[in-house]
């Protein structure tokens, strides 16, 4: 099983991730929301909008699914995107992967 890759992202007003199916060679992509949902923050997976999330929630998609996001609110949106092979992932797994990733860098 390949290592988990973690991206930490701050999406300021107007910033976006264009529609993509890039899973960085892994089977799954999990978003970990670091801030609560605000109206006009768009997160879409396979044509389905995700809204009203809470800080700490995780949403996983598989590599067949297209994802995109766009922040049209006036607040920054913080989240982590973890790319992994195991079907389930926990915040603990992501923190561990992030720590290893930072040490390597």
């Amino acid at each position, binding site marked *: 099983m390949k290592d988990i890759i973690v991206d930490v992202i701050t999406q*300021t*007003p*107007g910033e*976006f*991730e*264009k*529609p993509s199916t890039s899973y960085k060679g892994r089977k799954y992509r999990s978003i970990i929301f670091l801030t609560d949902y605000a*109206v*006009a923050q*768009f997160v*879409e997976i396979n*044509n389905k*909008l995700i*809204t009203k999330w809470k800080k700490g929630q995780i949403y996983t998609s598989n590599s067949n699914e*297209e994802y*995109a*996001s*766009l922040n*049209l*609110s*006036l607040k920054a949106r913080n989240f982590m995107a973890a790319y992994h092979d195991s079907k389930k992932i926990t915040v603990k797994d992501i923190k561990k992967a992030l720590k290893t990733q930072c040490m390597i860098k």
Partner: protein
Amino acid sequence: MNKEKMKFKMIKFRGNWKDELQYYQANFGRDYLTKTLKDLKDKNKWKKLNKHSLFHKNYNVNRNTRGFVDPKHMPTLEKVRGIVGLNDCQVVILKYDQGQTNLYHRDYIPRHEHVERPDIKLSVRKEVGLSNFERLLLMLEDRKPGQYMQIGDRMINKWQAGDCYIYNGKVDYHSAGNCGDHPRWVLRITGEPTEKFNKFLKKKEIKI
């Protein structure tokens, strides 16, 4: 559908305007608005009125472009002006390329914004500020991946060419943007409502 959540009304326009979009020119820039607002003696008022544009500028946020309807090359779109029943009707094409947005905001229509092509004369208002206006958004193409719109608490990622959204932009916060590969095209219609507009609102479908 929950009526509390239904922040807008929709009327379907049917017509063929696809070929007309090739004549679009981004000839209605916001520098014009800023320049006109700067003429105001009260700087605080200028800042207040131009807050939305300043926010985009300060955060380096890329905004959509806007262009007038050219009646010679866009006869179908020009017809919309006469159909909706708005006085001093301004019709502007909005184009959102990838990364272009109009962030969360409410509308105000100062008189200098309420202008159009030089060949169309509009009534001049005395006050800069809110006026009695309606604003409609007519989707000119089917929705493509990465294109979004929000009205009130409704987040929208599905629409078809011809869907016309009518909502109270003075009250309900709204936004729109595009992070996809294809441009998002919208016809923005603004004007003062007449009795004809009230009749228009009762329709479900319009052929142009």
